[in-house]
């Protein structure tokens, strides 16, 4: 069976709707991210799409200092469902992003030709 959509397109369609989607491998009982056509744990093509609750924890963080422009955050976020993704934490100074900090997903829409992407904001107590 040919794939009707690329995994990337399905992922981006969810983001357009304001959802952070990931895949789940029922045979491995584990989440899969980034989205794929073959499960890296079992080799199976059976992967279910799920929508994350959008809560996670900062796993690693850096502040990029570009030659031009203001420094900005880049972080790896461990989502509560058990998958990790690259993102950034917004609404606080980039150097105030701390490992272990609780964060909540929101969709960032750059506009124009650029696809939406998942960013995070502090979620104290979550």
């Amino acid at each position: 069976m040919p794939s009707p959509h690329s995994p990337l397109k399905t992922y981006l369609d969810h983001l357009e709707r304001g959802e952070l989607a990931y895949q789940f491998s029922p045979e491995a009982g584990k989440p899969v991210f980034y989205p794929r056509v073959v499960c890296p744990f079992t080799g199976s093509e059976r992967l279910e799409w799920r929508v994350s609750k959008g809560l996670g924890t900062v796993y690693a963080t850096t502040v990029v200092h570009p030659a031009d422009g203001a420094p900005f955050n880049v972080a790896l976020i461990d989502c509560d469902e058990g998958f990790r993704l690259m993102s950034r934490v917004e609404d606080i100074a980039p150097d105030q992003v701390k490992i272990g900090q609780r964060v909540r997903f929101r969709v960032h829409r750059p506009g124009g030709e650029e696809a939406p992407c998942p960013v995070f904001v502090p979620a104290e107590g979550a």
Partner: protein
Amino acid sequence: MDGLKRGSAAIVGVAESDLGHVADDLSVIDLMAQGTKRALDDCGLTLKDVDGLFSATSQSRLSVLALAEYLGLDPKFIGSTIVGGSSFEYHVAQAMGAIALGLCNVAVIAYGSTQRSVGRKQASLREINPYETPFRPFMPSSAYALAASRHMHEFGTTREQMAAVAVAAREWALLNPVAWEKKPLTIEGVLSSRMVSWPFTVRDCCLVTDGGGAVVVTSAERARSLRKKPAYVLGCGQSITHASISGMPDLTVTGAQASGKAAYAMARLGPADVDAVELYDAFTLNTILFLEDLGFCRKGEGGAFVEGGRIAPQGGSAGSLPVNTNGGGLSYCHPGMYGIFLLIEAVRQLRGECGARQVPDCEVALAHGNGGVLSSQATVILGGEAAL
């Protein structure tokens, strides 16, 4: 590695091409050919003897074809595995296997880069990763910076400890006449330099130079008839854990644990047997991670291990460990894929050719290559006749 026979092949010829900022319009294949000629001269072989050819570079998609044409070769065996800076350590294992099978007898492994002359952006194709690129990480620095943040968080590693790696590399570089950097560096100097991707300043990051080189691998039997003392390949190991940093299982543990374990097992040696340690120091954190993962200290203790000049040149004082004796990617040369230079320096240390930076009584040397963003790890353990 299972299937490879300890000591069955040796590196017999090594050479750098021109380094630093090479003449205008020299191509990467010019540099590969220059390194090849010099490495063959080093051991007394000629192009007619070469029947195996390996190469990798970010600036030529079909580099082994280009190099074969350039040198007028139709090799019986070729390899162009390209997994970043560790590619050449992978090539050593492949050449060793090919030689053992009789697929070739004299293999050249070559590298060239003009990334300083042409600019870093021109030197390597920018790949879009739809799950990372939108966040504008400054690659590869930000990937290693993320790993550093995790090491600091879990083990209390400090920026000063990472800076100590850069300072030690600089001290070694000052003993190497062909090193790019010529001025002393202090911990304060590292910390106060321009921030690139926290916690790294520009002095935590490798140089951006041109350069290239080659090594010649042949059977142990043939090696004994050549000009220079053979550097026998005692152990090889490799491991791939991920490609992009968001796919790395644990940012404080690299595939060097697995590659080192395999190489030590094949060599029937351990870290205590290694006299000179050549580690791929694309960033200061790397040296700390690889010292841990290759068993020179325990996990999490790499930061404390490098303090107090322990890996700096000290003339073999008690407790010290000679690490990155050429000055490393941080202070000697880093054209983008540094792995060939680890092999060149390890061989020269075993031969006793290193002048002011020579490690006394060097019988076993370890070259550990890293590629991608801590992605592809490959360890090669080399030894002289006494270590066989």
